[in-house]
C-alpha cells in the first residue's frame, strides 16, 4: 500500500473549523433513519447522489400545497410570487459560486445537460481542426458531448493523461495547449479518484494560450467552497442532486460576455423575445437558454439545499469530510488485499478501491446485505478504468452526514466479503 501519511492531516474528528454536530445534522435527513435488509442504512454513495434534508423536501412540498403556478407568464399573484422565488434561486446559485451576477446562471436538468448546452451553443461555433482538451479522468458527461461535437464539426479531442497517484499532469497539459486549442473541459474533482485538479493553474495556462475553460464542478461544489471569479472560470457546471437538492435541476455558470454571444440551444416558450414565422428574436441570457416550463419546484428545492449547506458552512463541511477521508483511507488501507485508486494530495472524500481476487460487483452485493450502500462499477468513467487496468472499482463517497462509524461498518462488511470468498 502506498503511504497514507499525507492523508493524516487533519485526522478524524478534527473539525477545528466551526465544527458541527453530525448527529444533529443526521436527524435532518429522514432517509438516514431507514433500515435495509434489517440493518441500519450506511449511506456511502453521496458521490452518485446525495440524500436530502427535510428543509429541501418541505420547501418543495410547501410550494405545491400553497402557491403553485407556472412562472414568467402570469399576471396573477401565485404566478408572480413563484416567479420571484424561482428567480431568487439564481441569486443563491450566483452566491454559491461567487458569480458576478445572477444573469450568469442558467438552470438546466443536470450537469450533463449544462455541458451539452455549451457543446452546442458554444461548441458549434468551432471549426474542423480546432482542439478541445479533456482529461483521462473525466466523467462520461464530460467526454461524450465532445465526441458528439467532434462528429458534428470535426474538432480534435485531446486527452490529458493522469499520473499513477491519480493527480492531473499539469506538465503534459501545458505541452498540449496550442494555437488551435479553443476549449479546455476538465473536472474540478474526480468522481472516482477524488482528485482535486489544480483548476486555477489549468485556467491560467488555458487563458494564456487563448482558450476558454469549462469546469465540471459536479463533485467540487459539494465538498468545498467554489469561487468562479477567483478561478476565472469561463463555464462552471454542477448538478443539484449531489448538493443535497432534488433531481432534475442543475446549473451552468458562464461569464456574461460569453452568454451574450451564444446562440440559443433549445427553442420554445420563455426563451424568446418575439416569435413570428418571418423572424424570431431571442431573450437575453439567462432566459435565452431556458426553453419551456423550467424545473420550477426543483429550483426552489435547490435554493433550500444551498441555504442548508450555507447554514452549516462549506468550510465546516470540508473540514468534516477531510477528517472522514483521512479516517477512511487509514482504515481501508489496513484491510489486507485492498488497493486504493487515487492518492492525490488534494483530494475530496471519495475512496475507490478493489479487493484482490474479488470482483467489485460481488463486493457491492455482499456489503448491501449489511446495509452498506456503495457504488461498484465503472462510475461513468470507463476510460479511467482502462487507465488503471481494472474493469470496475468499489467506491465509498462521503457527505456531510457521514461519520467514522459509517467507515467502521464498511470495513467490517468488507471483512465479511473476504470471509465469504475465503
Amino acid at each position, binding site marked *: 500500500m502506498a503511504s497514507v501519511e499525507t492523508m493524516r492531516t487533519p485526522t478524524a474528528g478534527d473539525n477545528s473549523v466551526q465544527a458541527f454536530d453530525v448527529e444533529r445534522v443526521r436527524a435532518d435527513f429522514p432517509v438516514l433513519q431507514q433500515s435495509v435488509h434489517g440493518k441500519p442504512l450506511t449511506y456511502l454513495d453521496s458521490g452518485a447522489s446525495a440524500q436530502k434534508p427535510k428543509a429541501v423536501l418541505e420547501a418543495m412540498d410547501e410550494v405545491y400545497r400553497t402557491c403553485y403556478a407556472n412562472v414568467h407568464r402570469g399576471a396573477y399573484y401565485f404566478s408572480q410570487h413563484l416567479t420571484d422565488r424561482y428567480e431568487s434561486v439564481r441569486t443563491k446559485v450566483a452566491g454559491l459560486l461567487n458569480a458576478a451576477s445572477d444573469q450568469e446562471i442558467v438552470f438546466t436538468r443536470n450537469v450533463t445537460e449544462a455541458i451539452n448546452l455549451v457543446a452546442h451553443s458554444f461548441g458549434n461555433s468551432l471549426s474542423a481542426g480546432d482542439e478541445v482538451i479533456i482529461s483521462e479522468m473525466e466523467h462520461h458527461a464530460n467526454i461524450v458531448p465532445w465526441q458528439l461535437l467532434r462528429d458534428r464539426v470535426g474538432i480534435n479531442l485531446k486527452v490529458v493523461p493522469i499520473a499513477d497517484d491519480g493527480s492531473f499532469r499539469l506538465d503534459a497539459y501545458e505541452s498540449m495547449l496550442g494555437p488551435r486549442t479553443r476549449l479546455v473541459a476538465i473536472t474540478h474533482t474526480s468522481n472516482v479518484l477524488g482528485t482535486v485538479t489544480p483548476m486555477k493553474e489549468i485556467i491560467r495556462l488555458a487563458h494564456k494560450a487563448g482558450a476558454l475553460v469549462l469546469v465540471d464542478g459536479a463533485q467540487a461544489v459539494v465538498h468545498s467552497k467554489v469561487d468562479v471569479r477567483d478561478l476565472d472560470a469561463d463555464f462552471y457546471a454542477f448538478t443539484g442532486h449531489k448538493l443535497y437538492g432534488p433531481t432534475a435541476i442543475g446549473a451552468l455558470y458562464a461569464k456574461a460576455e460569453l452568454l451574450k454571444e451564444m446562440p440559443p440551444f433549445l427553442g420554445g416558450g420563455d426563451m424568446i423575445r418575439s416569435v413570428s414565422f418571418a423572424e424570431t428574436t431571442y431573450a437575453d441570457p439567462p432566459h435565452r437558454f431556458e426553453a419551456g416550463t423550467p424545473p420550477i419546484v426543483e429550483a426552489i428545492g435547490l435554493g433550500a439545499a444551498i441555504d442548508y449547506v450555507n447554514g452549516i458552512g462549506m468550510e465546516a463541511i470540508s473540514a468534516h469530510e477531510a477528517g472522514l477521508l483521512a479516517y477512511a483511507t487509514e482504515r481501508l488501507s489496513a484491510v489486507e488485499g485492498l488497493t486504493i485508486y487515487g492518492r492525490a494530495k488534494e483530494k475530496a472524500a471519495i475512496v475507490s478501491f478493489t479487493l484482490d481476487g474479488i*470482483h467489485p460487483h460481488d463486493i457491492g452485493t455482499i456489503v448491501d446485505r449489511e446495509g452498506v450502500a456503495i457504488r461498484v462499477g465503472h462510475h461513468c468513467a470507463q476510460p479511467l478504468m482502462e487507465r488503471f487496468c481494472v474493469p*470496475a472499482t468499489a467506491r465509498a463517497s462521503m457527505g456531510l452526514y457521514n461519520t467514522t462509524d459509517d467507515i467502521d461498518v464498511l470495513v467490517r462488511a468488507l471483512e465479511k466479503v473476504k470471509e*465469504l470468498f475465503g
Partner: protein
Amino acid sequence: MDDLLRDLYQEVILDHGKHPRNLRHPEGANRQARGYNPLCGDQVTIYLVEDEDGRIADVAFEGKGCAISMASASMMTEVLRGKTEAEARRLFDDFHRLCTEDGFTLDQAYAEDREALERLQVLSGVRAFPVRVKCATLAWHAMTAALDGEGQATTE
C-alpha cells in the same frame, strides 16, 4: 453471514468463479459472440465449435467478471457439449426460469434439461438478487447471440 448470501455464493460457485473451466479460445471455433453487461463492465466472449450435425462439439469462453458471471459461464460450458442448437436454446429458457421464477422446480422443466439443471441449480440463489440475474445469464445471452450469428449481446 446471511443465508441468502450463503445461497448465492455456494462453494461450487466460488470454485467455478476462481477456477473457471474451459477458459480458453478453442481451435476451430466457428461461432462466437461477445456478451457485455454495461452496468458493471463485465464481458465474456463465447466460442462454439459446431460439428456438421449441428451439435456443439466444443464450447469455451474468455472474459473477466464477477464470481456469478464467471461461474455461470464456466458451468454453461460444461453442460452444453453435445447439444443441438435447439436443445441449447431450450436449456437457456429453463435456466432463465430457474434464475427468475420463485417456486420453479426441476419437474417444471423439460425432461431432457433436468440433468443439466440439477448442476446449474446452485445458481438459483440469484433469484433473491434480481440485479444479479444479468450476471448469471450473461454467458447464455452471448451463446444465443453466437447461435443467431450476431456478434454481440448486451444485458441492457
